[in-house]
C-alpha cells in the first residue's frame, strides 16, 4: 500500500463516458496496462434520536480490500474510522433504532484500473442511486508511504494525463497528514470526503480552476 491521492476530473459537458474514454486514451498513450475493475461504495446512516446531536455514519466498501467494511463516524467535530470485518454490515440493521440509512443517498465509484510502472490509476464513474454524477480518479504511488515525500512526483504524473485540474498544492486531507504513514483508511476517508462534495452538488464546474498545469 502506497500513497493515494483522489482527484475529481471536471466534466463540464456531463457526458460521463466521453470523458472517461478521453482519460482512457491518454493513459494508454503512457503505456498503461489495464488490470481489471474496481468499485468503492458508500452508504450513509443518520441518527434518528430526539436529541439535536446529529451524527453521520458512513459505511464504505472498497473492492481492493474485499472483506473489510469501513465505518466512518462523523460527529461534526471529528471523524473516527473503524476497520471491521464485513460481518459489520449485519450489525447495522440491529442499530436501526438509532441509525438509519437513506437508500437514495447510496453512492459509488466504479471503473477500470490501470498499472503504469509504480503507479496504479483507477478511473471511476460516480453514480448516486443509478444517476451519473462525476468522474473520480484515484492515483496510488506504491513505493512510498508518506505523502510529503512523493507529492511532487505524483502531481507531475497526474498532470501528465489530467492536465490543469490537478492543483499544485496538496489536497487538504493530505495536507494535515503530510508525514503520517498512509493506510487504506486514508484512501476511503478521501472517498467519503469527495462523495460528500458530490452529493452536495458543487463539483461539476467548481473544480475547473487554474493551476500550474502541464
Amino acid at each position, binding site marked *: 500500500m502506497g500513497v493515494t491521492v483522489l482527484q475529481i476530473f471536471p466534466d463540464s459537458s456531463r457526458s460521463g463516458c466521453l470523458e472517461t474514454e478521453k482519460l482512457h486514451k491518454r493513459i494508454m498513450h503512457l503505456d498503461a496496462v*489495464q488490470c*481489471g*475493475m*474496481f*468499485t468503492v*461504495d458508500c452508504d450513509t446512516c443518520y*441518527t434518528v*434520536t*430526539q*436529541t439535536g*446531536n446529529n*451524527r453521520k*455514519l458512513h459505511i464504505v*466498501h472498497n*473492492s481492493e480490500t*474485499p*472483506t473489510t*467494511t469501513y*465505518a466512518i*463516524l462523523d*460527529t461534526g467535530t*471529528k471523524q*473516527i*474510522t*473503524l*476497520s*471491521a*470485518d*464485513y*460481518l*459489520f*454490515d*449485519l*450489525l447495522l440493521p*440491529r*442499530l436501526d*433504532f*438509532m*441509525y438509519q440509512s437513506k437508500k437514495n443517498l447510496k453512492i459509488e465509484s*466504479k471503473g*477500470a484500473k490501470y498499472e503504469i510502472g509504480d503507479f496504479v490509476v483507477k478511473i471511476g464513474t460516480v453514480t448516486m442511486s443509478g444517476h451519473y454524477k462525476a468522474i473520480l480518479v484515484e492515483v496510488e504511488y506504491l513505493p512510498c508511504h508518506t505523502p510529503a515525500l512523493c507529492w511532487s512526483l505524483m502531481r507531475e504524473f497526474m498532470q501528465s494525463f489530467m492536465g490543469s485540474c490537478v492543483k499544485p498544492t496538496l489536497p487538504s486531507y493530505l495536507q494535515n497528514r503530510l508525514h503520517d504513514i498512509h493506510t487504506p483508511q486514508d484512501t476511503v476517508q478521501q472517498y467519503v470526503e469527495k462523495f460528500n462534495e458530490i452529493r452536495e452538488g458543487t463539483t461539476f464546474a467548481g473544480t475547473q480552476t487554474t493551476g500550474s498545469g502541464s
Partner: protein
Amino acid sequence: MAMPVNVPHVGENLEAAMKSQIVPDQEFLLQGSVLDTSLGVVIDRLRGLCDNADILPETFHDHEVVFVLKDFSAMSTPGPASQGVMLRVRRAMDYPDLPYQLRYVGYPELGNYPALLRNCLDIPVSNNVCEFLTELGAKLDHEFIAKGFIMKKGRIKVTVFKMYKMGIGMAKDNLEQMTMSHMVELSVLTTKTDMSVAEDLRALADQLKPLVQLERIDYRRLGP
C-alpha cells in the same frame, strides 16, 4: 479491450449468503460452573474428551468491555430504543497484536432446542473500537477479565475460565476474583441451515456429568 463486466460487490456477496442462510450467526450455548477445588479433575476429563489430548490445553487471558447503545436522552418508552443493544468488545491481553472482537449477542430463541440458541455476530475490528462506540452514543456498562483454558472438540469450543474484577491499578498477575469457581462453557457457531450440531453439544455435556451440570441458562429469567 476485454474487460470483466462486473466486480463482485461485498454487499451482494453478503446478501446472497443471507438469502441462502449460510452466514454463521447462530450460537448454541451450554453453561455451568465448577468449584476451584475441582478444576483439575474437570480439566483432565475435558482433555480426555476433546481433540489433541496429548498437548496441554491452550490458555487465554481476555479483557471484555460491555457497552450499551441506546438513546439515553429519550423518554423511557417501551421498544428497542429504550432497551438498547449490548455490544461487547474483547481483546486478548496475552496477544496484543490480535484484532479486537466486537460481539453482538441477541436474546435466546424460544423453542425446544437441546442447547440455548441465540443470534450472535463476532466481528474482528480495529483497536479504536471503544472510542468509536463511545462517539456512536454507547456508554460503558461493565467490564471484566476472563482467564482460563480453551479446548475444542470438532466444531465445539470448550472454555473453562475464571472472571476477575477490573479496577484501577490492577496488575496483570494481581487480579481480584469474583467468585470461588470457574465457568465452563460449551459453544458452537453455526448457520440457520445446520442445526444438527446442537446434539453433539448436548452429548459432550452429558459426558461431563456429574462433574459439571451444563444447562441452558436464560438470563432474562434471572431476576436482579
